[in-house]
């Protein structure tokens, strides 16, 4: 019996011609793990919000949704609140109260449950999720991963039958994201809970899903098992959605083999051995970047946040050259973002030097430093937006940069064309998707005419295609001799687009090299493509490399 049955559902937002959801029918069995994927703006969130009438967007809806054979509209509010759980993207925004225990109890309080019962259920959930250790803490003291786990637990405590999650791991670092996905898997297997998950980062979830729904412009493209989806995507070649898929599927997609689609690294590696016995097993190395022109240099930089606090940076030394993309990789709390703050002059080190074009950064005046020189794209681009229209955002920078009208318009047009944001000019910055917001923010800082741009976790929350677009933009910038320094968790992205990578660990850079030597030298901290192919190819690190070598053999 289907627990959720969607019949010919269409939905369109007010004052918009195109349908956000276009005639979708699907049925979800009890206990299934459903993965929904698709490009940003394909209607994923709109679709799953329809399953939760309390938070469904306003607009014209046609078709019917059945929950346990009852029309969803007829389900009473109390039942809906407890039986259909909904976890959102941003871990911070969903938390309502100030204490962990109170957050866990919040939903149950709303359902008018008595204190002794709440006490038992909260205790049960806290033990199941391993929350006891921080049960009495303030929520502000939790890490992002813990916050999202708390959000999940405070839904689970209400005993839902269906769990809906909207990109729950997009704001988490890879380790916390993997933990979260594993917890979902555990819930699905041990409690037989039906899970509907919308996700961009598919590497871990894809193999464990029972069925995958691929949406395209509000339409159902494919709805099948992961293997079948992988195979049928091969026939729909060159679709943008493929950029977000796990590496093995992407590689399989480009090669003409006649077997089943590999889903995990293990299957992918077996699949490679079965199909390819290669003589050519090596990618020609990158040409060494031109390192004659040092634009930025850190010399033995030590930093701590307070006199009594431990050191965050312990003698960091690094150099960045003109017109290169330099990635700093590393785990949470290793000091990557602090390094970025030191480079941008927000934090000043207590020992060591930061040299910008050979001159100490503290000797620059504010205007000298941030105009025509160094610029930062923060993790959260929203912190850059001041106005209610994208267009106006640019005007204020024009004023500061003292450009005349003609030059300004030319410059804005030029940048807008390079970033493909012309069509966003009349919108409110907050109405844009994550990727679009980032592009607008980038356009804003490009108007400052920077020679060095610092990116803090630029790929956070972006789907596969937006990442590709961002990477291409970075390459473009590089051509105009801009130096890019980025701090990231995203190994795959750094491998594909950087000229040099550095591993940050325990307040220092422990290794630094061009991406091919860097990643093929690591055994664990390396890309999926490299882990999958290292037994037959010597130094293939991106899926592009592997595809290239496969096609040659």
């Amino acid at each position, binding site marked *: 019996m289907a627990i959720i049955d969607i019949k010919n559902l269409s939905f369109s937002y007010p004052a918009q011609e195109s349908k956000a959801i276009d005639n979708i029918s699907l049925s979800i069995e009890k206990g299934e793990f459903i993965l929904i994927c698709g490009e940003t703006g394909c209607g994923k969130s709109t679709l799953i919000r329809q399953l939760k009438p309390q938070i469904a967007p306003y607009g014209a809806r046609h078709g019917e949704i059945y929950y346990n054979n009852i029309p969803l509209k007829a389900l009473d509010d109390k039942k809906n609140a407890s039986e259909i759980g909904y976890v959102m993207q941003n871990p911070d925004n969903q938390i309502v109260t100030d204490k962990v225990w109170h957050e866990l109890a919040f939903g*149950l309080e709303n*359902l008018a449950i008595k204190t002794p019962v709440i006490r038992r259920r909260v205790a049960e959930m806290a033990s199941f999720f391993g929350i006891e250790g921080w049960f009495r803490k303030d*929520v502000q003291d939790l890490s992002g991963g813990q916050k999202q786990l708390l959000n999940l637990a405070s839904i689970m405590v*209400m005993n839902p039958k269906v769990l809906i999650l909207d990109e729950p791991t997009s704001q988490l670092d890879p380790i916390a994201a993997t933990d979260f996905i594993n917890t979902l898997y555990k819930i699905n297997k041990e409690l037989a809970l039906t899970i509907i998950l919308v996700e961009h980062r598919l590497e871990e979830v894809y193999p464990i899903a029972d069925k995958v729904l691929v949406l395209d412009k509000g339409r159902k493209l494919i709805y099948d098992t992961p293997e079948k989806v992988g195979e049928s995507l091969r026939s729909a070649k060159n679709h943008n959605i493929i950029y977000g898929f796990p590496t093995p599927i992407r590689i399989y997609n480009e090669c003409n083999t006649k077997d089943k689609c590999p889903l995990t690294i293990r299957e992918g590696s077996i699949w490679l051995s079965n199909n390819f016995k290669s003589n050519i097993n090596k990618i020609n190395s990158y040409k060494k970047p031109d390192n004659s022109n040092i634009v930025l240099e850190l010399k033995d930089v030590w930093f701590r946040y307070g006199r009594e606090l431990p050191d965050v940076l312990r003698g960091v030394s690094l150099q960045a050259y003109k017109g290169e993309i330099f990635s700093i990789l590393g785990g949470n709390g290793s000091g990557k973002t602090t390094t970025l703050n030191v480079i941008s002059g927000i934090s000043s080190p207590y020992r060591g030097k930061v040299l910008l074009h050979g001159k100490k950064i503290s000797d620059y005046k504010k205007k000298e430093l*941030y105009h025509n020189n160094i610029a930062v794209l923060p993790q959260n681009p929203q*912190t850059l937006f001041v106005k209610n229209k994208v267009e106006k955002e640019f005007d204020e920078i024009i004023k500061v940069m003292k450009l005349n009208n003609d030059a300004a318009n030319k410059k804005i047009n030029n940048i807008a064309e390079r970033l493909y944001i012309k069509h966003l000019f009349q919108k409110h910055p907050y109405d844009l998707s994550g990727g679009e917001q980032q592009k607008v923010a980038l356009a804003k800082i490009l108007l400052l005419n920077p020679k060095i741009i610092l990116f803090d976790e630029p790929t956070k929350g972006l789907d596969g295609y937006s990442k590709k677009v961002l990477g291409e933009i970075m390459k473009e910038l590089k051509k105009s001799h801009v130096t890019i320094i980025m701090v990231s968790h995203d190994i795959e992205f750094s491998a594909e687009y950087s000229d040099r990578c550095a591993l940050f660990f325990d307040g220092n850079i422990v290794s630094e090299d061009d991406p091919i030597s860097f990643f093929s030298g690591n055994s664990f901290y390396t890309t999926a493509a490299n882990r999958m192919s290292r037994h037959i190819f010597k130094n293939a690190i991106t899926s592009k490399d592997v595809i290239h070598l496969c096609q040659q053999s």
Partner: protein
Amino acid sequence: MIRISALESYHPIVLFVFFASCILFTMFFMHPVYLAISLISSTLLLGKLVGLRKLFKTLLYILPIFILIAISNPIFSHKGVTPLFYINYNPITLESILYGIAMATMIVSIMLWFRCYNLVMTSDKFICLFGNIIPTLALIISITLRLIPKLKDQIKQISNSQRTLGMYIDTGSILERIRSGIRILSILITWALENGIDTADSMKARGYGLKGRTTFSIFKFDKRDGIILGIILLLVSINILGEVYGYSSFYYYPYVKNMDFSVMTITFNLSYFLLLIFPTIIEIKEDLKWRSLISKI
């Protein structure tokens, strides 16, 4: 290191009743003996809660306040019948000096009591207290307490981003600084409103607004709390009785009231001392218990 005090383990109601009566009594009883008792017991309790080193630190910045109040009263008030000397033809009277000292003692004691209160009554205890009486208010407080650190963090992020745009100035003329402050505030408000929608959705999705919302609290009122609350209430009523019969009232003007040391007065004084020293006794008792437990191990 965070010391877990024995007091913290009591139910919020017990703690609230104790501190409320302490602070109110200290405010109303201007009798020198009562004030001395309040000062001594608040100092002892704070010392017990934070340790000697931190106590001295607190006393160090409280001392100037004490002196300031004690001195300023005789300078500005010239009431009283016993002039000691004259400054600018204004009499400095014995009464106003004594009253100044009494006032200073009272204010300093209240400050010390509030320090103790803050250490013991954490926000969740306060919320639990009002959760049953005014549930909506309790929830609002909880949401606010969640929001404050979040906004603080966001302000920091915004000002960092704006600084790297060259748009935030923390040095320069006051007008410029105000202007960039307003800018940050405007960004913050937009951000808060946008992200507040998520929080509202999260509340709605979890059934907020359904009928008959209950209030959960992790604090349990057990027998131990009942006994302690009983003792405190008994002592409080004895002291109210003392006030009714005038044993704790006192006056400084126009001349200082004579102290009397009758058995009844001393009994009431003792009951006041017992009430105020009660938490300190609980703390010490707990310490001794632990010491004997450790020695048995």
